[in-house]
């Protein structure tokens, strides 16, 4: 566990280094696409954004600024700092992600338990087919289809935008449904295995009802694979949120991320990547700790 915490800054440093050099060493600077600017002004611009001097010095300077919590200025959205942009957009992404996370978890666990509790029945087959269908519907297929049905044909929900709880529903569902399907399948497989074990038979022999056996005894053990999937799940949600935000015109960090690649806006890009990675690492650490606690409780 301690090794894990120590390794986090190392991983982060690798992430920062790779991102920095990928951007700085790719051809074309951030001011290339605009009108031809006089060399003197370009030089001034480069020095304002600290893009002058040898690349290694730039790298060292960037790391120093990062240590002070300064993600620097965006080269596209002039005079706005990356910190400012992220402070505005990140809460939106986080609300969307958290809602999708909860939806995926609740829906997935419910469906997985539902299917596993009815072995070899039509409802099990139906539930499993449904999950397979959902996994084959990536967010960029599901999102527009949901808009087509619920927003345009039925006009129940808004097409996109942000600020209203009804505007949160479709994007969150789009993000959550494929993930819920993965959780349901994982849980189903492990629950089926657990339900065949001796302690479950003992519980049944004690005369406990079916639902008590499944919910109080088996689910506790069978949930472990789902918990270890939470890390990759969070990574999926963050990546997925980029495309979902584009589809539903949600003003989150994802849109800025895509634009920053197209605009060669290096520090904004770096900022988004760093913040995403830090978030994921902290989340993974929490998942790891809770896995260990749960695992120990089961073993002991």
């Amino acid at each position: 566990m301690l090794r894990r915490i120590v390794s986090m800054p190392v991983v982060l440093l690798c992430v920062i280094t790779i991102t920095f050099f990928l951007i700085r060493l790719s051809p074309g600077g951030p001011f290339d696409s605009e009108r031809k600017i006089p060399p003197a002004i370009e030089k001034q611009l480069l020095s304002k954004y600290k893009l002058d001097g040898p690349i290694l010095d730039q790298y060292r300077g960037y790391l120093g600024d990062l240590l002070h919590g300064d993600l620097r200025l965006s080269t596209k959205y002039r005079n706005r700092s990356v910190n400012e942009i992220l402070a505005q957009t990140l809460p939106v992404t986080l609300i969307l992600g958290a809602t999708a996370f909860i939806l995926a978890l609740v829906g997935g666990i419910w469906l997985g338990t539902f299917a596993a509790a009815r072995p070899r029945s039509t409802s099990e087959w139906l539930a499993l087919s449904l999950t397979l269908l959902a996994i084959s519907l990536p967010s960029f297929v599901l999102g527009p289809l949901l808009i087509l049905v619920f927003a345009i044909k039925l006009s129940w929900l808004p097409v996109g935008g942000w600020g209203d709880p009804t505007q949160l529903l479709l994007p969150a569902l789009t993000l959550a449904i494929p993930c819920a399907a993965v959780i349901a399948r994982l849980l189903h497989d492990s629950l089926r295995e657990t339900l065949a074990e001796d302690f479950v038979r003992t519980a049944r022999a004690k005369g406990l009802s079916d639902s008590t056996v499944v919910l109080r005894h088996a689910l506790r053990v069978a949930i472990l694979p789902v918990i270890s999937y939470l890390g990759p799940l969070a990574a999926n949600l963050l990546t997925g949120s980029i495309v979902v935000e584009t589809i539903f015109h949600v003003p989150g960090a994802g849109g800025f991320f895509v634009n920053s690649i197209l605009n060669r806006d290096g520090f904004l890009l770096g900022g988004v990547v760093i913040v995403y990675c830090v978030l994921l690492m902290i989340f993974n650490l929490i998942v790891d700790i809770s896995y260990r606690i749960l695992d120990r409780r089961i073993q002991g």
Partner: protein
Amino acid sequence: MKVDFPRQALLPSLVLTLMTLLVIIGPLLMAPSSGLPGEASYAAPSFAHPCGTDLNGRDMLFRILEGGRVSLLVGICGAAISLLIGTSYGLIAGSARDAIDNVMMRVVDILYSVPRLIFILILINAFNERLQQCASSHGWDWLVSSSRIVILIISLGLIEWLTMARIVRGQTLSIKGRSYVAAAKVLGEGYWTILSRHIFPNLAGIVLVYLTLAIPSVIIDEAFLSFLGLGVQAPQSSWGSLLAEGATSINPLRNAWWMLLFPSLVMLATLLSLYNLGEALRRSLQA
């Protein structure tokens, strides 16, 4: 390990074969004018255009089939690369000393929890121009026009190998403990002989199964990038970029649902068949 061809795999394999044939032969059979801009802009599906037409009056069926070529090509080649990397990585980790194995698997764990696709996005856009310059200086015209596809294949292969590596390592560890490997060691066979003669052949089944599961992941990743406009770009198209066009053709003012629905259905059918095939093979392998 012998994999009997299971019955549940029959339908998905048929669908996939049919899809591949259609994608390869279909555009050749259709009238050559269907891929060119026509007069009927945003025409609804009809007998002449079974899947409707797009903004420029191009036949959607033609475009879907042509986009399928790119999507399937990227999927298969990308999965093959990930197979190569994943298998060798897993094989080395599984057969190496514990300390090396630990480090190698830690790396996989870390990569699993990092948004890999985000790095690929940066990588593609950083290297595309380089590759184009390099290709044009050597006079490789085909590479200039399809540099993005080549980069997509390589970079998606570079991120989808993690699951494969884990599975292969686990399998290698379990085979390593079998008595016939111990017997081979006693007989004085070297590390590489054991690896290639005894361990590798026994991995073939499971590798095949995970190959069928890696192809859809690569197809999805490619479509994800192309949907954002950062993967395959015009004039070329793939299912991802067609879906992106479809998504923008759906709004309260103009409802060109055919531009979204048909690419979605084709992609859904392909992914569903691939997953079903993989599942069926996996189950028959476990049984």
